């Protein structure tokens, strides 16, 4: 499933441009993702810079790093990584997202290798990355242990996986399902199945089971007064993010 095989019919371009505009409309249906994005990026960039000894104030600080974004959607994480100089592969199981993300990357003047594929398929092909971004995916997969094993196989020794998901407790049920889906209508109803949510300790056990070493975890906390997300050391009660490394050989 190479991106070069994804042919774009000129007649389809207008449709994809409209869909790209929808993905990237900060007031549109992906508004909650856009609101969370600076906070997610801040965590991802800080972890990558620390792990690979990069300073963040130069041009192309992530040059030479190969990064995989699983569940790339419209490219909300893949584009920033490419802009910071990384070689980026964006993978999405939804075929329709690929040309949409490609159209937007071209408009942004960025080279990104988007592929309609899965973590398991990429691992089977023997692909290897310095960084695997695994953001808000694990709560949607059928078999988290098998999925995380594929993510671990995709990492080079010494590589870094960033994994975020939703905690499972009464508060996350209230916030993510009732709040985001029903009250705020930020997300379509049925986006999440609360029983699939994973507690931080469960996630750490799954990550260790996949052969990775968890090194950090933080919460994403929404401040309704400032109307923005912040990273929290202690509050992992709803959205949280983790960093794990693959031991060097």
């Amino acid at each position, binding site marked *: 499933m190479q*991106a*070069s095989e994804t042919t*774009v019919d*000129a007649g389809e*371009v207008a449709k994809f441009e409209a869909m790209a505009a929808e993905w990237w409309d900060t007031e549109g249906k992906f508004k909650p993702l856009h609101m969370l994005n*600076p906070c997610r990026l801040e965590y991802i*960039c800080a972890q990558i810079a620390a792990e690979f000894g990069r300073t963040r*104030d130069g041009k192309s600080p992530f040059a030479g790093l190969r990064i995989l974004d699983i569940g790339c959607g419209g490219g909300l994480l893949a*584009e920033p990584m*490419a802009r910071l100089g990384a070689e980026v592969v964006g993978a999405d199981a939804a075929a329709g997202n690929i040309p949409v993300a490609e159209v937007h990357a071209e408009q942004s003047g960025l080279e990104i290798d988007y592929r309609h594929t899965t973590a398991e398929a990429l691992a089977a092909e023997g692909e290897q990355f310095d960084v695997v971004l695994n953001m808000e995916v694990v709560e949607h997969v059928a078999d988290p242990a098998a999925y995380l094993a594929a993510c671990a196989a995709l990492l080079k020794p010494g590589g870094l996986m960033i994994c975020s998901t939703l905690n499972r407790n009464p508060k996350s049920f209230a916030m993510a399902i009732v709040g985001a889906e029903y009250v705020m209508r930020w997300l379509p109803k049925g986006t999440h199945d609360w029983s699939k949510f994973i507690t931080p300790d469960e996630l750490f056990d799954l990550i260790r089971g996949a052969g990775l070493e968890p090194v950090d975890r933080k919460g994403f906390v929404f401040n309704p007064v400032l109307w923005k997300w912040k990273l929290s050391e202690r509050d992992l009660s709803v959205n949280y993010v983790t960093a794990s490394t693959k031991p060097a050989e």
Partner: protein
Amino acid sequence: MDNPARRRIFGIMKHDSDILIVGGGLNGGTLALALAQTGFSITLIEGRAPTVGSGEFDGRSYALALASQRLLKVIGIWEVLDARAQPILDIKVSDGRAGEGPSPFFLHFDHAEIEEGPMGFMVEDRHFRPVLQAMIEASPAITLRSGSSVVAQDTIPGGVRVRLADGTDLTGQLLMGADGRASGVAERAGIARRGWSYHQTALVCAIGHERSHDGVAHQFFMPSGPLAILPLHGNRASIVWTEETQEADRISNLGAEEYLEVLRPRFGDFLGDIHLDGARYHYPLALSLAERFVAPRVALLGDAAHVVHPIAGQGLNAGLRDVASLVEVIVLAARRGEDIGTIDVLQRYEQWRRFDVVGLAAATDTFNRLFSTDNPILRLGRDLGLGVVNALPGLRRGFIREAAGLTGEVPRLLQGRMI
């Protein structure tokens, strides 16, 4: 990714500069330097042709808040200006009527009450502008286009394009308008303005005086409007006062000696004999706010975003706060790999500045209306009020810190830190 058909459809965009700035005044120039030092390439577009100043004092000077001075320090301008700047060691605010001198209850701000040293600095335009100009010309990251006016601007995928009067097209990720109260950048972006006139005019001049000012700035509130005496290097001071527009027009048309005759009784003889030094200026006062400070790929700053009553000398300081906030927002976004021209990035700057600026406009307006009165009851209340403020050190420190620009969520450049 080598699909030749797709290349023909889209084509990769390469911008002339990362950021285009329209307006090469003090705000635009400082912004260009700060952005260049954080790694961006800049095209600075200035309508006026480059001029070589005579170096003679022309009467123009600026009261820089401590926070503004820190910004200039971080970007390397201050070390050149320092020897020619006059520290403001103390500010005395009092209520007075022409010929009567200050009232006994006066608000006495002393820099010893805040830990950061002087409360601010007086800098002359003839010193500030050439240093800024030289640093801009020396910066390899800044392309200066003087004598160029912008005739059109529009957003393009991944950027913004402006057309100059000579037909040149320039593109960047982001366009910043530092082009003053009649901002063309704002108008072309469809940003409307609101405001009103105060029917007052500020009269500005500089004087030489007999006795030392000891670094003390004075602000008197006269029935016609406030009068400020701001210490300059040596035995000189900058005077700013306001009058009803009709009266101001009459005064500014007077000869030098008659002008001094009007000025003298307004602040008494505590500086000894005075004479005029440099040119005189007058500016009709008006409040003008852009309805938005940002649009897709466009950010406004300085007078292009907001013109406030200059009662506390906050115009340039507010502009430099814009510079510091905008640079911080843009740099942090770029370091996360975000597209710096998108509206959700730019709205962080607007949110940061909007409250501060609208608050400042409202505060200076109320302050001016309260103090520009001859009503004896209001005058008494004011005198007592100032006496009470003086008796409460904590409250007074709060006023000083606000005036020095040290409150609120302070941008890193205003704290003297590089981003």
